[in-house]
């Protein structure tokens, strides 16, 4: 298997369920790593590939919900599929609010889980792609001088060169020069592209 192959992490304190889920997921050709507790998972190294978590809500020690919060706080964005023995509504609501990808009740139908896993991996792939693009964009944007950044902000806000020149107290020509540098450094193909990139950057930062 290639290093880039996605991984499914299965965390459940019950060995028999862990083995069953692992076998099930492996049978469709996916890579699986299992952990008996949330702590074990946190202690392990995770390769930088698309992944998702299959997580038992109720576990001794750190619970599934606790782990979900901890991952979010640590800035590790990974889609979580919760499995619960008792589909109690407050708990599932809480999990979904915190951004759980899916909430399945035990016993889980194999196909349901596999579908959820495929969806979660697909969404992680997209998210990772977005993050990667955002990172690239950020690098490009970082290379702008403070003055260029000011010009960029106003350009994106939809102001005309003349207005920008007035606002920043510079000549229209200078604005044009800055603007050309911005377009060049950010590799923007058009004004629309520039706006889209800065929007992408803003949402990625917010996440």
């Amino acid at each position: 298997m290639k290093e880039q192959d996605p991984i499914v992490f299965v965390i459940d304190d019950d060995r028999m369920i862990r083995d069953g889920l692992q076998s099930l997921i492996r049978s469709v050709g996916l890579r699986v790593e299992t952990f008996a507790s949330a702590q074990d998972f946190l202690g392990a190294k995770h390769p930088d590939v698309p992944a998702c978590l299959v997580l038992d809500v109720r576990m001794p020690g750190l619970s599934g919900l606790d782990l979900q919060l901890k991952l979010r706080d640590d800035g590790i964005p990974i889609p979580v599929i919760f499995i619960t023995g008792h589909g109690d509504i407050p708990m599932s609501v809480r999990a979904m609010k915190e951004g759980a990808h899916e909430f399945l009740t035990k016993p889980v139908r194999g196909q349901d889980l596999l579908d959820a896993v495929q969806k979660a991996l697909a969404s992680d792939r997209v998210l990772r792609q977005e993050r990667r693009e955002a990172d690239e964009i950020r690098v490009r944007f970082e290379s702008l001088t403070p003055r260029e950044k000011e010009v960029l902000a106003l350009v994106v806000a939809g102001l005309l060169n003349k207005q920008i020149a007035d606002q920043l107290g510079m000549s229209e020509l200078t604005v044009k020069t800055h603007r050309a540098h911005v377009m060049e450094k950010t590799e923007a193909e058009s004004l629309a592209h520039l706006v889209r990139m800065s929007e992408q950057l803003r949402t990625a930062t917010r996440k």
Partner: protein
Amino acid sequence: MQINTAAAAKGALLRYGLAIGLVFLALLASMGLQDSIGNPFWFFFSAAVILSTWLGGTGPGWLAVICSTLAVMYYFTPPLHSFAVTPRELPYFVTFVACEIGVTQLISWRRRTEDSLRQARDELEVRVAERTAELKRQLAEQRRTEETLQATRAELARAARITTIGELTASIAHEVNQPLAAVVANADACVAWLARETPDLAEARSAAERATQGATRASEVIARIRSLITKATPEKSRVQINRVIEQTAALAEGQAARNSVTITLELSPDLPIVFGDSIQLQQVILNLVVNGIEAMTSVTDRQRILTLRTEAESKCQIRVSVQDSGVGLKEEVMRRLFEPFFTTRAKGMGMGLSISRSIIEAHGGRLWAESNGSGGAIFQFTLPSEDRPSA
């Protein structure tokens, strides 16, 4: 009644006939022997009177006396062959008659005494038989009452068991659902391995095996519960208390985990055998364990630990203790703990400890509660044991 009268008349005829016959025999014997012995009539007629009185009663006795007197007057006192008596023979004759009368009186008195004695004895026998029958009836009734009481008590204990199990429902459902989830996951995996373009039989087999294990585990959980709720009559047998405690701990494991309670077992390895009803003993332990877990739900500043301990106090007594690290028992609560219908819980029925105590006492042991030094409570009970190790 008719028949009785006829029978009585026939009896009287026989008795009087007997007297006459005996006197006649005495006459014959006296006449036969009067040449060899002097005045033999004395003995023979006396014998006839004695026998007549004894066998026939007072009437035939008197008849024998009269007949004898007449016979002696006629055949043995001069003038012979007449009913007259010469003045010279008169004292002799009177003595004879007096003796005969005395004998018949004495014998008939003896007989009467004996009769009344026999009658008294017969009456006594009848009374004894009646009283015995009555006692038997009372005894049977008492046994029936006791059996009913026993059955009621067993039913009550079972009701309490079901209540305790009821408190564990959520965790038991989880315990059954868990292996079932494993069964489903593994069975699905098995099918998936078989459905591949080239089926992977080794993977499919091990998944199928895990499914079987899961099903076995689920059935074990159910078996543990079923033994507690089925309607079993109390039955005493040799019990290894450590085994009972392990089973109970397994049953309460889920409930403990839900409440973040750790159950630790400190079981003495060489514990003597106990003679008792294992289901009832399990009920007592389960009740104490569930109470202990309950007592720790509000504890947040320290670990929630429930310790089950066994030890041999002596050769013929063991002690089981259940210790929690909960909030402990207030003095007021401690005093009323074992009263029926006393409870500190909103949902409790208040019968658990009361029934537990009566179960332990029925086993010849003692159940009591104490505060333990480091906060929390400790419930302990003793049980008499057989004087030999369980190994």
